[in-house]
């Protein structure tokens, strides 16, 4: 009798574990990925139009050095530069934000994500969590002179650095969740604007 009870318990545990596994080849999971990418892409594009690029009345050299400093301070690795026109950067997704920032992002972006997951996966979709594990954020920053100043444009892309998500059934995706992206942009711009005007002034004095 006890033997049967133990077996039943094991079965329940296994079934529970099965619920949280993700099979990326499952068409339903693929459907979640697609819809999520589509939705987040829309949000990302709207946000990109709003805060993806800014114009600053300063010379490109000042802007470039300032932006590089800001990104380094935020923990980005500068992987590549091209003159003072381009910065190729990356950072582990979990290092991009503080714990508090992640909490805020989860509160904003996770519900929408779960809704989509549930739509395709049923109740299992509720296990989906927004987590940054296994993702690298690749950033492309371009700086071009325009109208007596410099246009700075930033795009981000998510890159999976692990084959499958570790603990969540959240599928791999390319676009950052909208609120996370906005938070990231604001962090960069705010810090840049705090740092660079003094730099520019110093330069003027020289």
């Amino acid at each position, binding site marked *: 009798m006890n033997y049967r009870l133990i077996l039943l318990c094991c079965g329940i545990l296994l079934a529970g574990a099965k619920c949280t596994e993700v099979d990326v080849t499952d068409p339903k999971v693929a459907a979640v990925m697609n819809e999520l990418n589509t939705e987040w892409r829309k949000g990302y594009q709207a946000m990109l139009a709003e805060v993806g690029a800014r114009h600053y009345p300063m010379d490109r050299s000042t802007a470039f050095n300032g932006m590089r400093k800001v990104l380094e301070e935020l923990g980005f690795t500068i992987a590549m530069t091209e*003159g*003072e026109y381009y910065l190729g950067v990356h950072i582990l997704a979990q290092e991009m934000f503080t714990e508090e920032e992640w909490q805020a992002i989860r509160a904003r972006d996770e519900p929408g994500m779960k809704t989509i997951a549930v739509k395709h996966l049923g109740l299992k979709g509720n296990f989906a969590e927004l987590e940054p594990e296994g993702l690298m954020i690749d950033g492309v920053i371009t700086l071009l002179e325009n109208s007596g100043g410099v246009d700075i444009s930033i*795009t981000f892309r998510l890159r999976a650095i692990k084959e499958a998500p570790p603990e969540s059934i959240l599928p791999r995706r390319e676009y950052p969740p909208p609120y996370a992206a906005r938070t990231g942009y604001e962090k960069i711009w705010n810090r840049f604007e705090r740092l660079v005007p003094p730099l520019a002034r110093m330069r003027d004095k020289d």
Partner: protein
Amino acid sequence: MPELHYSNALEKDYRLHWYTIERVLGQGGFGITYLARDTNLDQAVAIKEYLPTEVAIRGEDLSVQPRTASDLERFKWGLDRFLTEARILAKFDHSNIIRVHSIFEANHTAYLVMRYEQGVALNDYLDRHKFLSEQELLDIVLPILDGLKKVHKQGFIHRDIQPANVYIRDDGSPVLLDFGAAREAVGKARTMTILVAPGYAPIEQYFSNGKAQGPWTDIYGLGATLYRAVAGVASRDAIERSRGLLGSTRDVMMPAIVAGQGRYGEAFLRAIDHALMFNEKDRPQNVEQWEQELNAVGVVPVETPAISAKQDQEPRVRSEPVTRTFTPPPSPAARPRWMIAAVTLSLFLLALIITGFLLLWGDNRSESPEISATADTAEVQGPLTGPVPETGPTVPPQEEIRMEAPENRDVGPDTSEAATTESILTPAMPVEGKQKEAISQEDSVVSADEEQSRQEAEAKRRAEEAKAEIERLLAEQRREEERLTALKEQRRLAEEQLPPEPQELPVVEPVVGKEDQELQEAMLLMQNENYPAAMTLLKPLAATGNAMAQYQLARMYRAGRGVLANNATALDWMRRAAWQGQLEAQDELASYYQEGIAGVQDRFLAYTWYLVLERNGNFTRVNERRALEGELQPEQFPQASYLAQGLFQAQGSTLAPDSPRERME
């Protein structure tokens, strides 16, 4: 800015009837164009003086005289043509065709008085604006087509349409300049010599006596002008295209539909490609036909172009085309020239067909030419601000091409081109039919095979002959180019004896010469695989900013020739060369980034550098770039395009010393 010196030009304030010379606007092989003042009407005019420098010179009394007695006939003949055609030109009244006010003879030569147009030549305009929108281009080309219609209806063609001859007035309206009334004067005495603008002249201008030319010739020129605007570079020269077709049955010219993809409408690009068809019969046969194709583009909701609107407002003030007749001038020399043209054209056709045939039989031994675009060859001459540049001078002398008739061909004097072609091609044509026949006749399988082999051998032999002939012609062309270049250099040196520019000459000249010499030496050493010695020469050159040396040095570091292989240093030198606009370096840099040479893989940058390469007219890596599209976020395409524009404009600058590798190290 120092004023340019023009040898043979009339001095400032010189009076020609009631015109006072103010300055030279341009000088070329056919004459000199001046800015002058009409003292009667108190207005500026442009005056073109007939002075073909190859046959005439200015005398001490300022009159124009033939250089030698033997040049007299040529000079006179050209003068007559100049006068006749100028008179015809003066009859045209169209706002987009240069307006001729009058013509007169003085100083033993002739003068053409034209409206003085203020603006900028389209080639300069394009250099400045890089790429114009489809609507902007239509606003330029449609009014000119309208003017050409008139011209063609009178039986004349321009024969030298190119960006340098399309002027954009200050009000934005276009005007077609320089119908080159004197051009034939120089061409007359030369056997099969034609003076054309490479990249803008269709093949029939190289190989025909005029009969094969018609409105489609001008349409080609306009198509090539649009191509230059769309692709950023001139289209491939017709000779090169013919060589490409002979070599591989593939046109070496990147079609506009590819070059302008994504930036211009498909219909618009197709219209350009149609105008640029290699064979004249494949092109639109008249302006109306092509105009319809361009108007069909009309997705761009064709509001009446600004230029046309201006025409409506001031219809009387401007206009007038000058042209030349479709029929060549009768002259004693005409017949032999025509025969030579027929033979040459036939040879080309023969080679084309035979090459196609060989390919069909799977015997493609020809080398595949690289698809790439050459740099724009249009030259600006005269003061940049000056209007009415002359066509003649924009075709540098070295671009004149002399094609002699094949000596061994026996062609009857009145044999038509078609007949000649047919007779030469006949043996190659029925091969396929005979082959089928042979297969169907089981009894004669063996003999059919023999027949087939014989025909193949015959076709190969003919193809070889044709190729050899083409090679000979091209070699001759090269020799002629070299000769003319040498002549040009002699003239330049002679002219340089005049007012010296003391601050520059002593320093710059020798250094450039030395650099070139050292670079050549280094290349030779590399060819001989003496890499260490080459390295010794290349390093200082590269350090002083010589892009070619930087590129070669990068390759040596990459391959470990003459030095320990070092990808990081290779990348660094390659970047420096690429930034200076060295196209091979840009190409390799993109592939470095794509492949992650030196541990730095950046597909965004690879994609961007391929775009820069394309902006420079090199489309050999379009497929690689497209393959990278999947690696980028679609939102990054415009960002890459914008960056490419920035890098393109920054070309020629020296790269800041902080390379990524340096920082990493």
